[in-house]
């Protein structure tokens, strides 16, 4: 998998985006978007289109002229998947000629309205002005006040795109181009707008489906400077004021990922006792603790064994696991055994590594929900459950001991974002393989004839949050499963049986005689084949399976069900 793309000029992006549009889409998903701003946002479209194409998406974008976006957003019944607003300080100041009070309140209200309709809102935040080269320019104070007001007025759900680092990267000469303001109301040089488009593409791709779900990291010369076995605990570089600062930076980068819910593991060729000794003796100098790592693999065996084990333990695909190791040899070994693993070609210079990893966009989390942030802790709970299963005498009494409670709630505005995230992310247990975005899901849920529920799970170890979405479309005496996803973390505890039971009861209460579903066998959903057969489904032609509700088999499970509104 390609994990980093060079920045391109506006003209190259224009050529690339047009070439991509002429090529058949090869299964690429199309997202819809409305784009506008207080400047001409058209110039970021080529970078946005090319950036999305590189990440496997197409975009159907409707561009609004400068100033037209907010009135559109306040009145529209359209529900694009994404709405993008470019709030430029250059445009807001009429090319640094005025310092008006901009109507940020209306922008924030428009964003809230779109978000409530299921659209994800992205706002490009105010940029540094050329006038600020004069350090005490009143334009500086005006722009900072504008940035702060926008930051505070926008709801947390709005994804902010900051551009100051792009301005630094292209330099003042590459950014400020008043001739494009005069000819086309562009806020900056089109090459700068292309960088913004690329960044929006990463935000959209990462919002739909994060590229990375977990990270494995090497120790020697990656997490700390030096080789544990040769240099000993005291010989390792960990001093943030000296050679160790690059390694401390890597630790901070990983800890921040963990804070966003990405579980970490150590994969090291070392004796475990050596590693334990270092974590004990150098604890004051290490930002990370052993307990920050979900698994610690210390062994002299080929690393791909541990990497594969970690992916299996978390029940995630290898293509969502990143392996960070300074050794080209170890990377090559892992790549040859596990080709789909994400293996960044880490720069040799330790100082360049974190910046390189950040530049790939793979680890970007444009919007971190509370649920995301709690994920790492939930993986720990799962580990405790598995340990219980290994030591428990029989499965039934173990499952009963968990005291599981399944929460069933109607799909509505309150859980829509999480429901869409689950639909986008779930591969193994995804019955129809459809991947609707917010507006399509909400439309299905709003029809009172349909079954549309979001399920959460809790047990004696804690809450797992929302773990399943099931949407069924009713047509007379038949219910068609439009979408059913279940987080693979909870699979195998009878949760799917309890949910199926809920669906069957709901159907029987309404005189629905048959449940049908499309089922497309993929490389990753094999576990569903046995499940559907076990519930009584049989092939009914054209890739569909169905079961009479009177003949449906709901296996014994150990979950209590709480229904809510």
């Amino acid at each position, binding site marked *: 998998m390609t994990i980093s793309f060079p920045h391109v*000029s506006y003209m190259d992006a224009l050529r690339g985006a*047009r070439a991509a549009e002429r090529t058949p889409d090869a299964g690429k998903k199309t997202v819809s978007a409305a784009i506008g701003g207080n400047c001409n946002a058209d110039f970021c479209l080529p970078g946005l289109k090319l950036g999305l194409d590189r990440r496997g998406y197409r975009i159907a974008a409707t561009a609004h002229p400068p100033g037209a976006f907010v009135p559109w957003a306040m009145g529209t019944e359209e529900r694009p998947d994404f709405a993008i607003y470019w709030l430029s300080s250059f445009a807001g100041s009429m090319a640094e000629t005025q310092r008006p009070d901009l109507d940020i309140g209306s922008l924030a209200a428009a964003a809230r309205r779109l978000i409530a309709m299921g659209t994800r809102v992205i706002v490009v935040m105010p940029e540094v002005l050329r006038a600020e080269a004069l350090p005490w320019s009143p334009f500086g104070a005006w722009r900072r006040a504008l940035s702060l007001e926008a930051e505070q007025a926008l709801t947390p759900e709005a994804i902010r795109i900051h551009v100051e680092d792009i301005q630094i990267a292209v330099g003042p000469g590459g950014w400020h181009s008043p001739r494009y303001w005069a000819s086309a109301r562009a806020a900056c040089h089109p090459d700068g707008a292309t960088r913004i488009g690329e960044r929006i593409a990463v935000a959209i791709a990462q919002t739909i489906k994060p590229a990375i779900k977990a990270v494995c990291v090497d120790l020697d010369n990656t997490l700390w400077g030096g080789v544990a076995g040769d240099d000993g605990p005291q010989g390792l570089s960990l001093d943030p004021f000296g050679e160790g600062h690059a390694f401390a930076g890597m630790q901070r980068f990983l800890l921040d990922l963990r804070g966003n819910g990405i579980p970490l593991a150590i994969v090291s060729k070392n004796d475990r006792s050596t590693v334990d000794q270092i974590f004990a003796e150098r604890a004051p100098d290490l930002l990370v603790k052993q307990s920050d790592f979900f698994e610690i693999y210390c062994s002299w065996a080929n690393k791909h064994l541990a990497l594969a084990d970690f992916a299996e333990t978390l029940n995630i695909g290898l293509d969502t696991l990143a392996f960070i190791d300074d050794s080209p040899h170890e990377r090559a070994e892992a790549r040859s055994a596990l080709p789909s693993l994400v293996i960044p070609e880490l720069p040799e210079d330790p100082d360049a590594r974190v910046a390189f990893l950040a530049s790939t966009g793979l680890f970007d989390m444009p919007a971190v929900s509370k649920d995301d942030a709690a994920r790492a802790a939930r993986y720990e709970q799962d580990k405790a459950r598995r340990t219980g299963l290994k030591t428990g005498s029989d499965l039934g009494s173990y499952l009963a001991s968990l005291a599981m409670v399944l929460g069933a709630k109607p799909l509505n505005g309150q859980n829509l974002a999480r429901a869409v995230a689950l639909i986008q992310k779930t591969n193994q247990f995804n019955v129809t393989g459809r991947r609707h975005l917010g507006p399509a899901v909400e439309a299905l849920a709003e029809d009172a004839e349909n079954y549309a529920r979001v399920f959460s799970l809790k047990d004696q170890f804690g809450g797992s949050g929302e773990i399943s979405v099931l949407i069924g479309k009713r047509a007379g005496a038949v219910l068609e499963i439009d979408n059913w996803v279940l987080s693979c973390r909870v699979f195998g505890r009878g949760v799917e049986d309890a949910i199926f039971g809920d669906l069957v009861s709901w159907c029987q209460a309404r005189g629905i005689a048959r449940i049908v579903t499309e089922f497309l066998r993929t490389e990753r959903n094999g576990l569903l084949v046995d499940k559907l057969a076990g519930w009584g489904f049989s092939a009914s032609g054209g890739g569909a399976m169905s079961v009479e509700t009177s003949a449906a088999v709901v296996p014994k499970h150990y979950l209590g069900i709480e229904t809510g509104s």
Partner: protein
Amino acid sequence: MLKQIEAVLRDVFEDQDIVAVPELNIRSLKNWDSFNHVNMMIGFEQAFGIEIPVKDAEAVMTVSDVEAILKKQGKA
């Protein structure tokens, strides 16, 4: 120079049959609109390493107008 101008025109207006001759009226090309006019100027700026003032850019009608801009900037 006409070849370089032609390459930009073909790129921006997505037509490989365009032949750049001095009298060619750019604004009569199939895909011409004000946005592609700006795209064309960005293309000339990148291809020739110059900055084209707004007044000059907006006055461009024909290929010979483009040649005149390049000449003024010492590119021809």
